[in-house]
């Protein structure tokens, strides 16, 4: 009997050394692999669907506060540590890996208005309604030691916010005016005022560290220069700005969270009009924080949701909400660009994934390659209607959904009215005002 066997040339499959990669014979002749677009389209569609299926951003909730969480701060050196201050004056330090509170301090009477960590991570500052600025050690007190602040500064007025310089032992508080303090002294190094209204937020520029931005209740955003101890410029918007945040990768860009449901990204060199208006929220935006890569930012709103915006897009790419989450007061993006923390009215801090469908943990190289491929496919086919539709789909609570609808109608009505007015008046008398210009009242030099 003849037995036929396959015989191969060993040169084709035997490796020279065992360290060589296994040779996989492939033929890339396009004739052998037809339908490339169609096949990739299907892959992209599947990837998009899977992305939505696996989109489970909520990780955990840190509960323990006995009042609404009013402010949060990131630890500059430790990813697993986060600080939070509540409306009852309590400050808690959390361990994110264990998802536990590791320390609780009754820091103030009344609200903890603001908090910030020192750049070296050894201590942190809090300001409260009791007109004090307190500096605390980051480490918990030793056995038998009292829980006491390192320094306490008693001020004349209420401080509403605090931020620490990124490199020097200097911090800034705001309230009636912006005060710049040396850590060693009990009186401010200099006080910066312009106008008479209370200032709600002050932030140091993380790159050009002598620059400061602040926003006041009289609807304006003021920039300061610490070296010259002078304000630089003021831009007045239609409504009050609640917070602002500087882009950590682009020195001159900052984003302001406004009461008029929008966020405005400004280039500080050209304050006449914002670079981008980010609209999607349906209630006042209360807080904003940039991702450490500077490509995106997250905003917290009174409408009980948080949204993630790409810096160069006018609408959000993601919205997070849960049934129990109330008005979100503060939000932070962790320094490894992976997670988002938000503190809300109902006393909880929630931990979210920044990328909703991301798989956590270590990925095998092949898994990683597949992820990258899927990502690119989604990007490539993002304009195709089916894929876009699936990628865009988000569930929203009814209240937000209805409000969005309502506001869309209102906007449409306004637009129509303007159009009609333009149609029935002398040409040129009703000018086209771009959206970016609409919200700026004035720029004061």
């Amino acid at each position, binding site marked *: 009997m003849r037995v036929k066997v396959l015989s191969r040339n060993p040169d084709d499959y035997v490796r020279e050394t065992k360290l060589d990669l296994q040779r996989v014979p492939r033929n890339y002749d396009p004739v052998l692999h037809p339908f490339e*677009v*169609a096949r990739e389209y299907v892959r992209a569609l599947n990837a998009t669907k899977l992305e939505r299926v696996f989109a489970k951003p909520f990780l955990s909730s840190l509960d323990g506060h006995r009042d609404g969480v009013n402010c949060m701060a990131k630890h500059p050196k430790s990813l697993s540590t986060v600080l939070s201050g509540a409306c009852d004056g309590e400050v808690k330090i959390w361990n994110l890996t264990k998802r536990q509170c590791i320390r609780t301090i009754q820091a103030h009477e009344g609200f903890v208005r603001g908090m910030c960590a020192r750049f070296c991570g050894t201590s942190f500052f809090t300001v409260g309604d009791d007109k004090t600025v307190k500096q605390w050690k980051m480490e918990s007190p030793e056995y038998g030691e009292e829980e006491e602040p390192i320094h306490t500064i008693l001020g004349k007025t209420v401080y509403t916010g605090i931020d620490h310089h990124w490199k020097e032992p200097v911090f800034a508080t705001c309230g009636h005016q912006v005060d710049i303090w040396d850590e060693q002294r009990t009186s401010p190094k200099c006080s910066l005022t312009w106008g008479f209204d209370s200032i709600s937020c002050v932030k140091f520029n993380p790159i050009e560290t002598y620059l400061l931005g602040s926003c006041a209740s009289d609807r304006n955003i003021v920039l300061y220069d610490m070296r010259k101890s002078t304000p630089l410029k003021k831009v007045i918007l239609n409504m009050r700005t609640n917070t602002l945040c500087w882009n950590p*990768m682009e020195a001159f860009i900052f984003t302001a969270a406004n009461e008029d449901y929008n966020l405005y990204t400004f280039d500080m060199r050209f304050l006449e009009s914002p670079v981008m208006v980010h609209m999607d929220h349906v209630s006042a935006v209360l807080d904003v924080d940039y991702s450490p890569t500077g490509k995106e930012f997250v905003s917290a709103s009174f409408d009980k949701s948080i949204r993630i915006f790409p810096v160069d897009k006018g609408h959000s790419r993601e919205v997070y909400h849960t049934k129990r989450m109330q008005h979100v007061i503060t939000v932070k993006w962790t*320094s*490894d660009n992976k997670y988002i923390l938000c503190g809300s009215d109902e006393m909880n801090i929630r931990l979210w994934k920044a990328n909703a469908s991301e798989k956590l943990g270590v990925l095998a190289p092949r898994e990683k390659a597949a992820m990258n491929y899927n990502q690119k496919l989604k990007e490539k086919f993002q*304009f195709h209607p089916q894929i876009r539709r699936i990628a865009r789909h988000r569930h929203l609570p009814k209240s937000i959904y209805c409000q969005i609808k309502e506001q869309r109608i209102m906007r449409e009505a306004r637009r129509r009215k303007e159009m009609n007015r333009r149609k029935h008046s002398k040409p040129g008398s009703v000018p086209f005002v771009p959206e970016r210009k609409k919200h700026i009242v004035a720029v004061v030099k």
Partner: protein
Amino acid sequence: MTACALWQEDGERRHRQLLEAISALSGRKRRKLAERSEASGQVSEFNVSCKGAGEKLLLSELLQPIHPKSTLGSVRKELARVKQKAAVELPLSKEEAKRVVREAAYVTSSKEVGKWQQVVLQNRRAEQLVFPLRQDIATVTPLERVTSAWKARTPLEQEIFGLLHKTQQPITDPLLTPEEMASVQAMSLEEARRRRAELQKARAVQSYYEAKARRAKRIKSKKYHRVLKKSRRRQALKEFEQLHKSDPAAALEQLEELEQLRMQERMSLKHQNKGKWARSRAIMAKYDLEARKALQEQLARNKELMQKVQVEPPEEEPCEVPEEDTTALPMPSGANPWMLGKPSGLAPEPEAQEGPRDDTVPGAVESKDEMEEEEEELSEEEALLQDFEQKRQQRTGNPEGHSKDHGADETETGAEQPRDSPVAPDCAEELGDSPVPPDCAEELGDSPVPPDCAEELGDSPVPPDCAEELRDSPVPPVCAEELVSAGLEPPPQAQEELLLSEQLRHVKTMEDMESLAKEELVEEQEKLVALRPGKRARQQEKASVSVTRTGDRHTKKAAAKRKMISLEAVLDGKPQEMDCSSLPVVLEEEEGGMEQRGMITEAFAGDDVVADFRREKRKAEEAVKPQPVNLVLPGWGEWGGTGLKPSAKKVKRFLIKAPPAPPRKDQHLPHVIISEKRNIHAAAHQVSELPFPFERHQQFEQSMRTPLGPTWNTQRAFQKLTAPRVITRAGHIIQPISAEDVPDTAPGSGARLEGEAMPGRKAVPRGKAVPKGKAVPKGKAVPRGKAVPGGKAVPGGKAVPSGRTVPGQKAQPRHRRAR
């Protein structure tokens, strides 16, 4: 009188001149007293004349010196200049002054910030950004430093530390016992590397040696063994003599040992000439010289054995050599077995190290048959091995001295030795037995999956069964067909710029996603339906209204139903078997070909696929043929009613013949149906409007056409194409950018940062194929007649084969395009 006066005057003048000349001669100017020559009201008692009393006094005149030259000239000039200037302005108000300061500060600081412009643009445009920007190696602070700052405070801690102190455990500083420190310091990296290389070589040599020994063992030639034995004996004798000279005591011991051996051999009666061999030899000896010789030898040996006092040189055990080589490893200090790179089971024998390598080891002599197997000759390998050994001993000279301090350790290892040593040869045996290198074998064992299979699994982004589906299911062709477009009908709905579509509904599973997609499809169709009449009119200008209406009705009905219809169902209705030249066709063997064909025909006796296809094609041709438009109104201009037909004349007049259709594209392709109708199923998947960053639809199509996957690209290209935009490392803090992070900046000064700010310059987003950055007017739609972006992506004239092959006709290419 006048003449007299003139004369007088002239005289006076002359007189004055004279006086002046005289005074000039003297060199000193004398103050000249003005002479009062006329009466005046204003008479100064200081002898000041009143000359020019009424004139205005000029300041410059006051400054003018008496002498023409003076230092005050510059002051005068300045005075003149000052006089020209206007009055100094009033100081600014406080508000304004502040504003000026602010403006100046703003200008300078925005200029300073502007130096980041280049960096920012570069980062925005970058293909890939790796965060954190500064990749610094994480430094692990040594434990002792961490613990040194820490002190025991609570009672529990104190108690624990008390215990630790009592046992004198190293708590704080070095954390290593002195022995450990010594072992750590004993070997440098270089040395370790060298030693490792040596070990490797030794191991290789050993394996060769073993192989050789095994070969030798298998040799059956008796002569060979005799010679071997003899030579071995000689060698042993020589060695013994040497030993005798160098170490009499050891020699004596060995002698005793040998004596024992001799006795044993003697008792064995092997040399008594009574064995089978001896007897046969005895017979042969008559004729054969060699046999005689052998017999004589045997006899001599016998005699030798019978003599009591004779010392017989013992035989050495060469087999032990390689094994010992592997085992006899240096111990730098005897304390740290880990530094050896070998399990501690193979610890060296101290005795073996001390003596020279080539002596006979008393304990090593074993039974006789074992001895026979061994090889005596000092081959190259042995030489090498011994060389290594010597080197090692040289090196270990110091550590040995050191190890003597730790006598206890050594004894311990010594005690362990007998237990452990048998293991090693076994291992060696095993290693030797396998023809394949062991790690290679392991590898073979490890990978039961054929590599290409694994590759396939890796390639597919979906689970393998999904991948299977992708390959087998009819879905891809459908998509392909649908993507092929005959014409473009952009949906009327304006493109929303929104990134999210927010709903009240949760979508959790793949099925939901499907339904999402379907919903979209239905919407699309409804829109299409709504717009149909107008578009039809444009598309098929000559088609009659009635046809459009009927078409309308049909599509409406279909739209109502379509919610239930899945894509696959639609396709399944029209199974069309195709074959494709490009796909590999299974060729039957010549021998069994006829049988197989017969079997196949038997199996598929019922369905004549080819005829089916022809019928289908005919039907399709019929369907597309332009129909004549019937505008005949029965009863118009004549009697109408049941049973009455409009007159032939009318019919002839009002039946408008459609112009003949252009020739079908598949006219000459018997195995292909090319449908030029627009497929709304495909339209739902197509991009109807040119997306934002693209300027022309060609660009977009180009970007669609290049595949990304590993099926079409080499591994390297695939990796490059799918490299993510932003890479972050888990657990790393990303600090804000600083001057040091900017790659091209010189240390200290931000050279790169000094690029001037370019206000108004727009950032051009990155992306090679995607020419972002230049805004495209939103409303700019793709011209209707042109190909649909994305849809055209299926290679235009290329074959679009369906999955099945038609058995009867294999070699001919058959194509089908979208229905």
